[in-house]
């Protein structure tokens, strides 16, 4: 499954309102709840935070990729958020995180889960791509950036 197959305007929020790590995760989960993509939001939050407790998914260059396996999704599900001012996410380089990819997968779909994460790892190596995402003003603009990449 191509990453682009998962990306639509209704799973993207620009800009994020939250200013703290736990709130960003809750906001992205709410985006998925509103889009009808998940079951129990509280259970999803617990799964994501359990993974964060093992080690932050805040990477370098302002990217964060919180993820979890959960039976509250039927298929691989993604939400994208952009916080231009940055949020403290305990990133490995100490910088504020600005672009968030929340990835949720059912426990029996590890293959697509890994491929989506690997796809994100690849595209976020491009500083130009991250700059464009960070400067985006709307969900539609984010979709367009992915399609043009």
């Amino acid at each position: 499954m191509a990453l682009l197959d998962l990306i639509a305007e209704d799973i993207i929020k620009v800009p994020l309102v939250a200013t703290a790590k736990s709130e960003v995760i809750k906001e992205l989960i709410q985006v998925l709840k509103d889009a009808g993509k998940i079951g129990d939001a509280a259970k999803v939050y617990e799964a994501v935070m359990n993974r964060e407790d093992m080690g932050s998914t805040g990477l370098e260059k302002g990217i964060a990729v919180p993820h979890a396996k959960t039976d509250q999704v039927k298929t691989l599900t993604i939400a994208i958020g952009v916080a231009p001012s940055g949020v403290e996410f305990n990133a490995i380089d100490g910088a504020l995180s600005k672009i968030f990819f929340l990835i949720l997968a059912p426990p029996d779909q590890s293959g697509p889960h890994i491929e989506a994460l690997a796809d994100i790892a690849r595209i976020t190596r491009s500083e130009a791509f991250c700059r464009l995402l960070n400067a985006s003003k709307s969900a539609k603009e984010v979709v367009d950036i992915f399609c043009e990449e």
Partner: protein
Amino acid sequence: MDGPLKKILVYIDGTEQSITAAQYAICLSKATGAELTALYVVNVRALNDLVKARIFLETEQAEYQRDLHADAERYLNHVKNLARSKGVVIASESRSGTPYMEIKNVIIEREIDLLIIGELSHIRSRRDEFFNEAERAMRNAPCSVLIVKNEDRVWDMFEQQI
């Protein structure tokens, strides 16, 4: 087995499209008498990339690797059952590595003359074209490649196969 097809390889990646490809391959094997092999590749390159990118912890890598091997076994067993239901003998092989490279290796090692894969995702960006494993397999396979389309039609064909 006098026809042009002697050995068919079908690539299974767990998608519905790859299972449809398996159904088509089973029908083709039955019609031609060609030997049929199903291949699943555990994509360890992607796992390694995730650890390098620090998206995965090493403990997660081990957990997901176990999951992927279990997936491989499950999907290959499913395809074996499909073949058995139509009286077709199928060999199966699970490998670890980069999918398109392992597909190419198996084609060479087993002297495969037809690779069958499921319908490809729509190409919506240049990145898809570069990194889609089925796309890469199609381009790199040293034998003819058949891409199976129209799930409903293949399903009917499979169901009608005695």
